[in-house]
């Protein structure tokens, strides 16, 4: 069995998923895919429920699915596979009947009566409530495949070499960074490998940037960019005064704090990134 399905099957992860379905606490995956939406970015990003966003219909009943899991394992998994993706019996996650089922009205009769022609026995001893719970467990398997907002990065790495990461760091990073100084506890701050990799590749800090604006008359002002585009530049100086100019009339100098990182982006191999991630995760 794959690692992913192992993760998806555990009871604790079901509870996490229950929390996620309610609160959407897992964040690393992009919820959009066909196209980025064109909502004008706002300073407070709206909390978007990926289940609703994707139009996935009724959300599965997590409590019922949890009760249904052992029943499914006992009665169904041999033929339909541990996560309902099929074995000698059909895949249920991609089943048109399952996808059309709302609350067991389609799945229920099949469990109860079986499909003698297809070799599926009738499960006459299962009570209605148990059948409902099994149906919800199957619906949860559909949700886990279809709702990419519930996907999560792995917490463990399968590749990367600490020693090679150390060598790469010494050759490429050590002129600006120190493993006993600014990065001494980086592994504790980014314990999740994908978050660490992103931090290594592009450690941009969200929020307004600092800039030096030189006006037409030669005056230099230092402060925070409140607004900056091809047309208008608004700067709040360190003293608190705010000024706006047409962008073409001023020179806006934004110190490039990420020049070193930018220069490395085209040079990294995936191995370099994995090695570096491994190495920096040891710094706690």
């Amino acid at each position, binding site marked *: *069995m*794959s690692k*992913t*399905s192992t993760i998806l099957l555990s009871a604790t992860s079901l509870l996490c998923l229950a929390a996620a379905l309610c609160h959407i606490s897992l964040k*690393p*995956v*992009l919820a*959009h*895919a*066909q*196209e980025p*939406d*064109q*909502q*004008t970015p706002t*300073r407070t990003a*709206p909390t*978007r*429920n990926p289940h*609703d*966003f*994707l*139009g*996935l*219909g009724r959300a599965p009943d997590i409590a019922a699915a949890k009760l249904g899991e052992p029943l499914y394992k006992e009665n169904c998994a041999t033929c339909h596979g541990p996560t309902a993706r099929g074995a000698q019996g059909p895949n249920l996650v*991609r089943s*048109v009947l399952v*996808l059309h089922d709302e609350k067991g009205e389609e799945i229920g009769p099949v469990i109860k009566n079986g499909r003698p022609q297809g070799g599926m026995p009738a499960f006459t001893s299962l009570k209605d409530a148990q059948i409902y719970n099994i149906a919800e467990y199957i619906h949860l398997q*559909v949700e886990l*495949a*279809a709702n*990419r907002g519930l*996907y999560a*990065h*792995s917490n463990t*790495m*399968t*590749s990367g070499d600490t020693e090679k990461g150390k060598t790469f760091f010494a050759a490429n990073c050590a002129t600006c960074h120190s493993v006993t100084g600014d990065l001494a506890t980086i592994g504790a701050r980014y314990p999740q*490998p994908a978050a660490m*990799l*992103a931090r290594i*590749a*592009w450690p941009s800090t*969200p*929020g*307004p940037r600092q800039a030096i604006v030189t006006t037409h008359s030669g005056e230099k002002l230092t402060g925070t960019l*409140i*607004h*900056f*585009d*091809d*047309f208008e530049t608004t700067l709040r100086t360190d003293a608190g005064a705010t000024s706006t100019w047409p962008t073409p009339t001023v020179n*806006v100098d934004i110190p490039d704090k*990420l020049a070193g*990182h930018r220069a490395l*982006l*085209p040079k*990294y191999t*995936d191995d370099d*990134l994995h090695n570096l991630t491994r190495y920096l995760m040891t710094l706690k």
Partner: protein
Amino acid sequence: MNLRILIFLTLLTSTFLLGQGTKPQGLDPKALTLFHQPADTWPTYNGDYSGRRFSDLNQVNQTNIAQLKVAWTYKITGIGSLRGIGNPVIKSTPLMVNGVLYFTIPDHVFAVDARTGKEIWRFDFEDHGGHLLGQRGVGMYGNWIYFLTPDGWFISLDSKTGKERWRKKVADEKLQYFTTMSAVIVKNHVLIGVGGDAMDVRGYLEARDPETGEQQWRWWSEPLKMGDPGSETWPNQASMDHGGGMTWLPGTYDPDLNLIFWGTGNTNPVFAGQGRKGANLYTDAIVALNPDTGKLVWYFQASPHDTHDWDNVETPVLFDMVIDGKPRKLLAQAARCGYFFVLDRTNGKALVSKPFVGTANWSKGIDQRGQPIPDPGKEPKVDGSMVDLPINGATNWPPPSYSPLTNLFYVNASEGYGVAYLYDTSPEPEGYAGGGSGTFDPRSSLMALDVTTGNIKWKHVAKGEGSEGGGISGGILTTAGNLLFTGDSNRLAAFSPADGAILWSQPLNARVSNGPSTWTLDNQQHIVVAAGDTLYSLALNRK
């Protein structure tokens, strides 16, 4: 009141009101042309069949652009937040026929007087599921309007009244299909595509009868059974049956060749290729089909064995050009996978295959046909694999433009780096099975590409990032007034098509969210553009 008098008064009032405004009338089929649609009409999503989004109009031009002002606005009211999405955003390009604009958001169609911006009618639909991500607009045939809903209903409306004529189910939202396309009318065929890749289903494209709505043909994005041409690019029947390849953007049409050109979307499962080894035809491709039969004539695959969600639906733009003394019928596409392709549209042979964003480090170069060769070493990995494209790709649905005055192809592009992760390592993964993360060193650019070489002639990188407010947005329109219109920050901006200089801009209430379009009414050229929930019409202020 006497009932007869009431009826009389109602009739009188409605006649009076209609007399004040513009009466919707049908679309003359002669307005549907390969190039050069009539000046007073924008009859289809891209204006004409070519997808160039180039207009012959030049009343608004470089010498008078400073006088271009907002003539009217139409703001969507009374609809509220869309399920799972938020505020309504107009992504559709309005058709303009006989003085009436027809445009959409998911579940809603609007008919608005093109002279005044006053609403004539509105059609409201209540869906029972489906993804409300976008709606590209309506199609029109004579007096009839065609509209697709998030839950796969194909609806015909009377353009005069907005009243429903009939509806047909064309896609099953329970299988996670959803429909957003602006129908393309070719002869007596209404062409409609589908979206939806949350589950693993087959893409298809349909032709329907404009009068009855009945299906004329359906073309599937994958071969139907093992042994069929193209099936050798799949390991087994099940992988083809669940292979994706959605057809969610309007294609283009050459009446002389009698071919439609359509882009197909990403392969499914999206980020996991281990269960579908092979090139996975005809997903992530440009296909040329006979519009009368739905039969494949040629294909060109932009992203073979796609494992990065690089829908290849971006407009296949048609243009004619003389190269080395020979007139050529060409097709160009700036693809989401980062390559720019120029093909001979009579046979699909490539003239240009060249990355326009990054180096396409996911590919090991191109094959003899000019198709990229995917690098297995850059498929998504459990620990991540970095590509020199943003994870959402180099470009997306916002329409590009080609100007015959400059012979340049214009596209709004995203540059940077992204990391693709594999989550489902099982032999037969399902759904997305992975995902993207990070956009490193992001840049938002307007690019002009030389169609004979694929070289970048000029590039404008928008200043500002994130909360500062900068960024290129929406689609592109070029005109014979030597102007290029697109969104930049919260403005509609006019650029010089020759060199990318910014000539003019108009602040809007939000980012440009559709492709700008243009037409002339009463000897006045209008530029129409949407930003969020508001449609803007601009014209020269000649007072």
